[in-house]
């Protein structure tokens, strides 16, 4: 690992993104807009006294899911372009270490994800009065870990796609099952055994669990840190797998 090369990669990826105003706008604004839609969907629900609003539950989970989906898409397309344009092969003829490249990417998109979730969390918190016991800073932290997970999976999946069209098709395969089973639609305790078992090994489930901990406790709990740690380990594992797909030599 070489910090200079990692940071050069981060700067380069952010520089590329900076020239693409439309993508930056979409990354920053769309989650906040969707959150607004969710708020108004449940605007007129009638609640028994003391019950939590559906928005407080669903809106909170969406804060973690957005960065995951968006960063998965952005990363898999960007990395695929890097593979097809020949710049990846060229880079691998230079002294850059694969880890410099992958961590450079992960860092760049984490910065974007942090900005994205700051906007979305701020909107949820201040405009729609999202009611959680824990700190919104922890929500942003979990969102950023989710984003890095999206980056890592995107880097890995780009190796299995030849075209951008194929890369997009990986979303229903990799992302949608995690959203369905993470506990957003049906709580895990109401799932049948098979689905619950699958849910238990999907990374997004851990972030939803962590968010529930944040919502229910004013201080960070051990369970939350444990969830965050598991997510972190999964991210590292996926990044290692992704690095195996970067070959300096073709057969």
């Amino acid at each position: 690992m070489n910090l200079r090369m990692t940071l050069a990669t981060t700067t380069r990826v952010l520089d590329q993104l900076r020239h693409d105003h439309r993508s930056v706008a979409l990354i920053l604004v769309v989650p906040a807009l969707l959150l607004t839609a969710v708020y108004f969907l449940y605007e007129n629900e009638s609640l028994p006294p003391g019950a939590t609003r559906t928005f407080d539950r669903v809106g909170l989970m969406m804060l973690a899911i957005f960065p995951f989906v968006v960063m998965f898409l952005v990363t898999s397309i960007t990395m695929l372009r890097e593979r097809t344009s020949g710049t990846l092969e060229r880079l691998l003829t230079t002294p850059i270490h694969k880890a410099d490249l992958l961590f450079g990417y992960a860092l760049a998109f984490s910065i974007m994800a942090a900005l994205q979730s700051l906007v979305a969390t701020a909107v949820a918190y201040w405009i729609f009065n999202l009611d959680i016991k824990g700190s919104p800073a922890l929500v942003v932290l979990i969102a950023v870990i989710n984003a890095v997970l999206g980056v890592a999976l995107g880097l890995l999946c780009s190796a299995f796609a030849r075209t951008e069209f194929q890369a997009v098709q990986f979303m229903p395969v990799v992302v949608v099952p995690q959203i369905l089973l993470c506990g957003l639609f049906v709580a895990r305790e109401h799932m049948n055994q098979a689905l619950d078992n699958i849910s238990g090994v999907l990374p997004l489930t851990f972030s939803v669990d962590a968010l529930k901990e944040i919502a229910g406790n004013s201080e960070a709990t051990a369970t939350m840190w444990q969830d965050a740690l598991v997510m972190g380990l999964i991210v590292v594992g996926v990044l290692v797998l992704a690095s195996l797909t970067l070959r300096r030599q073709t057969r």
Partner: protein
Amino acid sequence: MSHTARHAAPPAAPAAISATGLHVALGRTKVLHGLDFTVEPGRIAGLLGPSGSGKTTLMRAVVGVQRITQGSVTVLGLPAGSAPLRRDVGYVTQGASVYGDLSVEANVRYFGAMHHATAADVAEAIAAVGLQGFARQKAADLSGGQFSRVSLACALVAHPKLLVLDEPTVGLDPVLRAELWERFAAMAAAGTTLLVSSHVMEEASHCSSLLLLREGLLLAQLTPAELAERGGSEDLERAFLTIIKAAERGQQESQVASS
């Protein structure tokens, strides 16, 4: 001039490139069928041959991005593709491998960062390919010839000891082409070895040694003067065609003889 260069070099300096019995297969297709050659340091070696003759595959094997099936390639005394060589070998692919959505300067700066290049190195590399007026322009907005020069600048910024260039002058006007060849000559005089592929025969005269490749076989390694003599023409293109046709005739005769 070449003699003084040879004497100035340390006596034990290894060949810049040395291939023995080099075979490469892409999947099931055999592309290179046992090549043997050496390129001395500080020279411009021209790699010439019809399209599909294996020029790019040979260059990729020298750079170390193509796995070889048999034989060996040694670059600057080390097996091609070994880690220390990544600092010393520059590779410019046929299609420009640069980021179209970045400025010229950002591209060169990024590839320079892998070689600890300074801001002055970046400016020098951009000036060397005549793009100093376009440093802040997005690469994708440049013309085709300018775009491919960005790719060259990204290799020059590393000050490589061996520079491998795949068809670097395609799409360039005659003035620029002449300037680039002057640049290459100056680099060679300073000790850099260049391996340059081309299918424009007039460019062969700029090289000190020529590798003639046809269907994955090395037809000959000779100097431009020897090419003119063997091909029986001062026009190198005609000389090359004569040699190619002679090789084809020889092959047909051997097929007739064996059938």
